[in-house]
């Protein structure tokens, strides 16, 4: 991979729903191995942006480049095929099914000659993956229902890490978690950098944003207020960018 070409490049993205402008002139480059946090008040357009990148919404105008190549996703499946995975707030796990079936949900492995499910391989790959990422669950065969919120989030993130080849979008990954579980999930997110993936994370917790991110991008009412290097800014500046009030 060319080190200078961004994994994802958004240029002048504009999105309107009918007459309502949701995103106005948004531009951002994401590099491999980089975590960028997207912050802003409710209704600032964070989720809309995630949906545009993941192929759920089409931008009204603007340009999306993946590895330098201009791209238009027809739907979420086509974005997924291009190596973009989303971890949703509600995790999108089937709770009565075992961990390994969730890991391969919609992309189950089969074996010849009858095309039956290859549960042995799925279980094995899943176990290797959760071990590698240190997601502590009893086993790959555990039912999701029997796992804690943090374990479930760990599985949702591990699943995205398994399938993403370029980019992971995280939508409030720790919103429903306790302190210890949040720390564990943050560790997991940080470890994804080593897989050379680009990560875009939405978070309401500025503490978390400062712990995890390399850069911070602030949205307010659909407008991009600015992008700062995390090491070169502080909470006061970010808060005033979010609220539009000088502090």
């Amino acid at each position, binding site marked *: 991979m060319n080190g200078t070409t961004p994994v994802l490049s958004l240029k002048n993205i504009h999105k309107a729903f009918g007459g309502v402008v949701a995103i106005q002139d948004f531009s951002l480059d994401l590099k491999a191995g980089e975590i960028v946090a997207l912050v802003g008040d409710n209704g600032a357009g964070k989720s809309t942006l995630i949906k545009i990148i993941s192929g759920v919404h089409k931008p009204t105008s603007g340009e999306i480049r993946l590895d330098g190549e201009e791209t238009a996703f027809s739907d979420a499946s086509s974005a997924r095929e291009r190596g973009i995975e*989303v971890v949703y707030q509600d995790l999108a*796990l*089937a*709770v009565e*099914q075992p961990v390994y*079936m969730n890991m391969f949900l919609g*992309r189950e492995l089969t074996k010849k000659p009858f*095309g039956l*499910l290859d549960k042995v391989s799925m279980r094995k790959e899943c176990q290797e993956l959760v071990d590698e990422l240190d997601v502590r669950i009893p086993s790959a065969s555990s039912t999701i229902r029997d796992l804690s919120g943090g374990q479930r989030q760990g599985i949702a993130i591990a699943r995205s890490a398994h399938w993403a080849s370029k980019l992971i979008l995280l939508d409030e990954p720790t919103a429903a978690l306790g302190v210890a579980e949040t720390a564990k999930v943050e560790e997991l997110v940080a470890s994804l950098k080593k897989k050379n993936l680009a990560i875009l994370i939405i978070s309401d917790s500025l503490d978390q944003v400062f712990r995890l991110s390399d850069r911070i991008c602030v949205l307010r009412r659909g407008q991009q207020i600015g992008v700062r290097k995390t090491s070169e800014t502080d909470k006061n500046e970010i808060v005033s960018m979010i609220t539009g009030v000088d502090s």
Partner: protein
Amino acid sequence: MQAALQKIKTIDLQQSIIYVGFLGIFLFFALTLHDDGFLTSRNLTNIVLQTAPATIMAVGLVFALSAGEIDLSFGSVVAVSALAAAVAMQTGPMFLGVLAGLGAGVAIGAFNGFLVAYLRLPSFLVTLATMGLFAGIARSMTDLRSIPVINDSFTGIFGSGSLLGVPSLVFWTLGAVIIGHVLYRNTKFGAHVLAVGDNPRAAQVSGIKAPRVRLMVMTLCGATAGLAGLLYAGRLQAAKYTLGETDLMTVIAAVIVGGTALKGGKGSIIGALLGSLLMGMLNNGLILMGLDVSDQMIVRGLIILIAVAVSLRDTSR
């Protein structure tokens, strides 16, 4: 050792209760009805033969419930399919009868499925309506008359025949259960059915086409009801609008008692088989006990109520 312990921990009470219940009731009848011939191989075979249509429909219903849908119309489908087959064979060959019977089942199932999957109408209401609709059609098809089935190869294959001493109905039952089990547990289709019933949104964002899955399970239900209709027509050597009329409660009870969740995402084909045999055993045992028909209905209703309550008790956790 630890793996073994883990395995024991993960055994699902709700899904294993059927084995205990099945054994318990079997032993109860075996002891109390020993002198009335409950344990004779002839009586036990009879139970299996009598439950064949219900077992096959139970297989279909496991798929529908697992996908978060339900089918209430299969009793009417049984009658329509049996009558369609019988009418077709009055002048045509067996092949035509089978085609008409199964075709009717598949067509009605697909009709239900289309309304459920693509118009997003609740399957409970759709199939409640089509249950009435096709019960009426079954009545009007032959003006309430019973149609004899005189095709010997048909009544052999779908009814009283046997191969190597094994009754053909046993083959149909085993075939449906084995194919159903593999389809349910070991194919992408089965996995997608469970995912759609478990968390439709998760299924959708994972690229699973939920409407197609819903159409398929409803069609499968129709197909199993169509096959059940052929088996009734074959065994009784006649078709009538009353066929399948009383199967609704039996089949739903068999499936629920067998460990399939009403709200989807979880189920068992083997459990449904045992549930169906359990219902057959109850029927049989109560008759042997000498209860009259009304008492049988009361006792059966109560036992089903208890069984369903026990199997559902921990789903709310």
